């Protein structure tokens, strides 16, 4: 192209530049970037635009896993696909005798299933909701749920080739089952070792399904059941799955090198403590050990005793001011004020709604998933926290620095 033609273009550019430079500062400021409203997405987390409306799921199948455990296969009423990352849980909202309860139940199905998702629920002694589900939920029942949520997750990736050690105790097997099936289906080169502790064979959830999986993936899946009170002739592991039993089991896993493995475990606290201590003593890095804690449901305080309070909410540099209503959680108040609140499980279990209290006094239901450091640094979970005075807080604050 001729130089002359290029020069004539330059004149046009120069004109554009001068016109733009003479515009108002606001107009000019726009020229660095353009801003767009981010489209909110329903799914693993909701934003305030959808307020706190739970999803409705329909139970399409009820599977009796053991005498005291049931699996609910659910689908969305709108038949949309269901997306989650293996390891996540749903918050089920149950209204029993007029009182609303929220409980977290882990997903046990593979993430490759698009239209259904399964949660598995074991009876807890005196557990209101778990017993209600085991006794009353039938095919066709509609359940209100929040989620899926959770940070105890493993994102399957077909290009990965990794070694995973799953350690489960009792009902802690549910998220591990989802991880196990998803990884086997998606990652054709990854291997899994599973150690599963129970009192007896009868109590072991998914016993037959694991047998089937082991057959199907015999080259990539190893399963070892450890029973406290095995029947005569039992060939598997024996004893309570504590540190010493785990150490023995680990010694027998000749094909497993813990230094290039990742551990996912879920089960009773003493089991997890023992396993963790043993793994760390064998040189495994803490970052390769993932644990899920089934925290008991937080105890609700008498919600009506909370008076209305003035609130100041900061989110991403924007500020909302307003008044809470009696009994409202900070999350509910924030949503009512249209602040960009974040939340997922709504029962103090996932940490998604974490806030930092900048000023004022609050009361939070216990137990919950906040760490001791976060407590000390005045972090709170907005879904289970209520104001005791005028309160100022920040949504989605940076991580606590130690």
């Amino acid at each position, binding site marked *: *192209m001729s*130089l002359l*033609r*290029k*020069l004539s*273009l*330059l004149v046009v*550019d*120069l004109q*554009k*530049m001068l*016109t*733009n430079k003479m515009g108002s500062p606001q107009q000019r400021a726009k*020229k*660095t*970037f*353009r*801003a*767009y*409203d*981010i*489209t*909110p*997405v*329903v*799914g*693993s*987390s909701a934003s305030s635009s959808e307020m706190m409306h739970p999803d409705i799921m329909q139970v399409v199948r009820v599977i009796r896993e053991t005498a005291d455990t049931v699996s609910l296969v659910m689908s969305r009423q709108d038949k949309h696909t269901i*997306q989650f*990352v293996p390891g996540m849980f749903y918050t089920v909202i149950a209204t029993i005798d007029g009182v609303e309860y929220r409980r977290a139940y882990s997903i046990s199905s593979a993430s490759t299933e698009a239209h259904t998702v399964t949660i598995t629920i074991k009876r807890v002694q005196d557990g209101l909701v778990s017993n209600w589900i085991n006794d009353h939920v039938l095919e066709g029942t509609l359940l209100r749920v929040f989620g899926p949520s959770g*940070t105890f997750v493993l*994102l399957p*990736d077909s*290009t*990965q080739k*990794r070694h995973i050690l799953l350690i489960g105790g009792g009902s802690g097997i549910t998220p591990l089952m989802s991880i196990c099936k998803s990884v086997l289906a998606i990652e054709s080169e990854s291997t899994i070792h599973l150690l599963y502790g129970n009192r007896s064979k009868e109590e072991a959830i998914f016993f037959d399904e694991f047998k089937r999986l082991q057959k199907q993936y015999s080259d990539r899946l190893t399963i070892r059941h450890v029973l406290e009170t095995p029947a005569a002739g039992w060939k598997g592991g024996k004893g309570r799955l504590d540190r010493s039993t785990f150490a023995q089991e680990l010694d027998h896993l000749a094909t497993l090198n813990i230094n290039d493995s990742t551990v996912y475990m879920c089960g009773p606290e003493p089991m997890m403590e023992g396993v963790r201590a043993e793994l760390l003593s064998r040189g495994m890095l803490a970052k390769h050990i993932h644990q899920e804690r089934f925290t008991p449901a937080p105890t609700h305080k008498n919600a009506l005793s909370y008076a209305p309070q003035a609130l100041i909410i900061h989110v*991403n*540099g924007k500020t909302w001011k307003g008044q809470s209503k009696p009994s409202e959680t900070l999350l509910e108040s924030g949503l009512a004020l249209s602040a960009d609140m*974040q939340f997922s499980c709504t029962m103090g279990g996932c940490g998604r709604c974490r806030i930092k209290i900048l000023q004022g006094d609050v009361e939070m239901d216990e137990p919950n998933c906040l760490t001791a450091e976060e407590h000390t640094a005045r972090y709170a979970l907005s879904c289970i926290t209520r104001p005791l005075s005028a309160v100022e807080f*920040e949504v*989605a*604050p*940076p*991580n606590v620095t130690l």
Partner: protein
Amino acid sequence: MNTPLDSIRNILPVHVRNRVDGLMEAADIFASMKSPSVMRAIAPSAVRGLLFSAGKHSDTSDMPASHSAHFNWAYPHDHPEMLELYERAKLGQWNGSDLPWHTSVDPLNAEIPVAPIDLIDLNIAKSMGIKFEGKEHMRMVHSMASWMLSQFLHGEQGALLAAAQVTESVKFYDGKLYGATQVMDEARHVEVFQRYITEKLGKMYHINDNLFVIIDALMTDSRWDLKFLGMQIMVEGLALGAFGFLYQSTKEPLLKELLKYVIQDEARHVHYGVLALKEHINYGISKSERNEREDWAYEVALLMRNRFMAYEVYEEWYDGTSVTRSQWRELIMNSPGMQRFRKTMFTRLVPNIREIGLLSDRIRPHYEQAGLGIYFAGQAAPEVTGEQMVTELDRESA
């Protein structure tokens, strides 16, 4: 050490200093143009982009074409390797709508960062008097990630239109068929990057001046091989490295998935460029013509190196404050995340320049002087497929 020039600079008001800094950088680019023909080819674009910031003052730009569309009525199968690439490209098509767009992305969530959080180093920033309070650091990471992806998007638009030109002008018939798949690939890349930026990040930066210069120079040049060199080797080659870097470092599952697909397309594109140019440059042109292309590629590599200083983010955050443009550059140059970013990009680019025969002993000292000599060794595009590349990236980051 403070030169007399520095002391003069230091007493100037910040906005004047910034203007001087920008001009000095542009002057460096002009001064590095060694041959008059390279000067003729790039200077007008450089004036448009670097001095007038032509990409920033309007939503549209016109770049008149001057190449000729090459037809062949005999439909020869003249390049079996390109035909094979065409077959691979047809099978490798994917639908951008199928990505998991339902994924919620929170660009300010430090637990699932979109881009590495050390793109801006807090300690270096602090030593310059730049402090990030509370959420500000994640807001900066959000800005940097949006900026990076915006530049990818603008590069992809350049690639879309340039791929169309290349398809018209390429002499190989098999190359034209392949070229059409690349046009489609680039459209898909524009689609997915634009969607990610507008739906998930909410922030799109204007095109960087250096990138504008590169695109303008190759779009307006009449020679088909320079378009190839500019787009297939330089822009795409660098993009391949840049995407790889982000693929490895992002913790955001949607972006990771998106990049995984894009990388596999990109690997084909660079391969095509190497196939078309290797023979042409080594045997098809005179020595002086080859030298000219070598100089041109070097010039573009310099523009590329300067392209990633994120001045657009500087302007958003610090324009009108006491933080100067040169301080910002210092911060970008020394932050570990950006250092890894540059390293990954040039590790992919320089071996391809070598592979097509544009890295002779004559030019090597200049690359070395520009700090790019460390990338002379390394694998070129035909030596790795897209899938291998993704696997390799996964392994490195595991």
